[in-house]
């Protein structure tokens, strides 16, 4: 009986303790993997947001309120994300940010939308900093979802614009993770390359299991056998690092057009392959962009956090959040959402960005950079390899706009 009683008390006690948060802090729920396969990426993101929050707090926060980042582990699992989101909301969080996994993003967007319809007055905003599935701003778009990363279609638009003018590309091999994002990369690549460079041959189109392959050498053997000169891949996390590692082992020499080669482990793997300026990345910013403010920020960030800034968009997100709150003179999610719509903003790496009202997609300049030996004016290397990112091409905001099919349901 005693045991039962203590158990009961133990069960109940923490439930009582869920008091509302103090009014003078703005809690942002960071929902991303902090354990399991995606943890390295998730932890990097968490540190980035915490750094940004500290930086803002040091300058007085937003409208005098301090910002607190609440890290919530979703184990890259949609249900777990919903549990964590609910938990966060109950503890006073009104802004959620998440990036890893489009399936999580879709679930969260859906959850937030339902939550806001069912709990008027307790609205929650969802800031998406990295889930790039185009459907999030097209058929599944939501008024409460804002995306700072460029959708995968936008990135592919920029990439194919670059490839169009590179006549050496003749045979392209597509290798992607077998899930919604990987599939949208492959479909967009086929469609856009077909339109812009019909002479390019797609010699392979591979989908492999997400985050499960430990040895890519069979895939590399296939790429080799296909005679491809370029590979396009949306792989991220260990899937890009191991892919490049296997390529290095097999001595495969092709040009790699990637979305996320800059993630953890990627630069090290590229250095090992010896592919000097043959691995390309499409981003909304990078360390050696040449923009002085961005480079200063990068320097301070690296000194403090110990990793390079993977997410310049996180900077844009947080600063724009602040701008919107100040514009609305409120941190009420409904007012912030309204203020964010069509908000123009000078992004970290320079140039004007726009949060489009139609689909809540942020449009900004897109960069294509290559990884290799650094020039004198490029101070930042990656993962202590001595190599770093080098500007190849910049696509301006106007050229990186794509149309949307979003039929936004407004409250």
């Amino acid at each position, binding site marked *: 009986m005693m045991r039962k009683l203590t158990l009961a008390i133990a069960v109940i006690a923490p439930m009582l303790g869920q008091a509302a948060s103090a009014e003078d802090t703005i809690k942002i729920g960071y929902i991303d993997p902090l354990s399991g396969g995606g*943890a390295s990426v998730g932890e990097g993101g968490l540190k980035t947001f915490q750094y940004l929050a500290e930086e803002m707090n040091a300058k007085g926060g937003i409208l005098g309120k301090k910002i607190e980042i609440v890290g919530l582990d979703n184990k890259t699992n949609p249900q777990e994300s919903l549990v964590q989101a609910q938990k966060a909301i109950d503890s006073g969080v009104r802004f959620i940010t998440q990036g890893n996994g489009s399936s999580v993003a879709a679930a969260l967007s859906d959850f937030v939308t339902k939550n806001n319809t069912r709990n008027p007055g307790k609205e929650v905003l969802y800031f998406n900093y990295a889930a790039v599935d185009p459907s999030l701003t097209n058929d599944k778009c939501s008024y409460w979802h804002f995306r700072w990363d460029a959708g995968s279609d936008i990135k592919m638009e920029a990439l194919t614009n670059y490839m169009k003018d590179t006549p050496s590309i003749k045979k392209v091999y597509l290798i992607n993770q077998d899930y919604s994002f990987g599939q949208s990369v492959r479909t967009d690549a086929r469609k856009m390359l077909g339109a812009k460079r019909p002479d390019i041959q797609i010699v392979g189109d591979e989908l492999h*299991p997400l985050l499960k392959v430990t040895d890519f050498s*069979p895939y590399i*053997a296939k790429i080799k056998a296909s005679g491809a000169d370029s590979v396009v891949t949306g792989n991220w996390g*260990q899937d890009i690092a191991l892919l490049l590692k296997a390529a290095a082992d097999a001595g495969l020499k092709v040009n790699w057009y990637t979305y996320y080669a800059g993630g953890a482990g990627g630069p090290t793997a590229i250095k090992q392959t010896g592919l000097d300026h043959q691995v390309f990345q499409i981003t909304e910013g990078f360390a050696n962009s040449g923009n002085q403010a961005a480079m200063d920020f990068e320097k301070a960030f690296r000194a403090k956090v110990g990793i390079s800034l993977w997410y310049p968009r996180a900077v844009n997100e947080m600063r724009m959040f602040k701008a919107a709150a100040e514009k609305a003179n409120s941190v009420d999610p409904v007012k912030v959402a309204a203020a964010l719509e069509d908000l123009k903003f000078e992004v970290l790496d320079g140039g004007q960005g726009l949060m489009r009202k139609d689909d809540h997609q942020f449009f900004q300049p897109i960069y294509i950079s290559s990884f290799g030996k650094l020039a004198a004016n490029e101070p930042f290397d990656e993962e202590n390899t001595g190599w770093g990112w080098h500007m190849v091409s910049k696509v301006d905001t106007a050229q990186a706009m794509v149309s949307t099919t979003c039929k936004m349901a407004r409250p």
Partner: protein
Amino acid sequence: MLELIVISTLNGVLFGMLLFLLSSGLTVIFSMMGVLNFAHASFYMLGAFFGFQLTKWIGFWPALVLAPLLVGAIGMAVERYGLRNTHKHGHVAELLLTFGLAFAIEEIVSMIWGKSPVDYRVPALLDFPAFTIFSTNYPAYKLFMLAVSIVIFIALLIVLKRTRVGLIVQAALTHPHMVGHLGHNVGRVFMAVFGVGSALAGLAGVIAGPALVTQSDMAAALGPILFVVIVFGGLGSLPGAFIASLVIGLVQTFAVALDGSLASAFGPLDPSAGPSVLTDIWNVTIAQVAPIVPYLLLVIILIVRPMGLMGTRES
């Protein structure tokens, strides 16, 4: 195409031999003690992480010897202080103990070494292409892995055929009930077998670590395949485990290499029909289903030949 076949065969045999290093220990432990060691893949992971850490401290070659010994010692401790005490509660309890252990080991590993892959490099001595076949390099390290696996395989054969413990193990494989009649030595024999099995798994981890990815979920990824191997080969059959390891290794590697789908064989379906289960199955490539091929094999063998490929016992 020929190039693909040669490379895939090499990779497949290599993966198969790695699987055998693990499944041999698992099979012997299962036959003798009736315990399906759920934590066997965790010992493999420990081998990889110990290998990584020791390589950092004292270099790869000493680590190659020391790390498996360490893992073997841990295995023996698990047998002595864990399984032996649980034995009285039956095989299910023993199985659950190893299940819990696998869980705890994964957590401890990720607690100490983190959750992201560690930078476990191929030793410089072996970091060169061994040969080039149709312009594809084959890394020397992989040949080294293959060599180590084969050496261990031969050593195992000799031990089983020539030594007393080997004879006991063999007897146990064919007549599991006989193990009870080993007398007062039974505890020590169990401990030794468990230790050697774990050490073999550890060795597999040390050599696989640099070639594959060394991270805290590597055990969970490999474990289920391991069970498929020993059920497929026939519980308690070492030759069965050997053949199954190679079959699964080759099948998985070749499945990745193949692009065929029903659509490519018989032409696309009428697109107006819209998406359905049929279109999913129709359009999926063999490469995409590669990860589920082992489990499909498992189901097929259970229907066709429930005791497994070489198995003689029903359970």
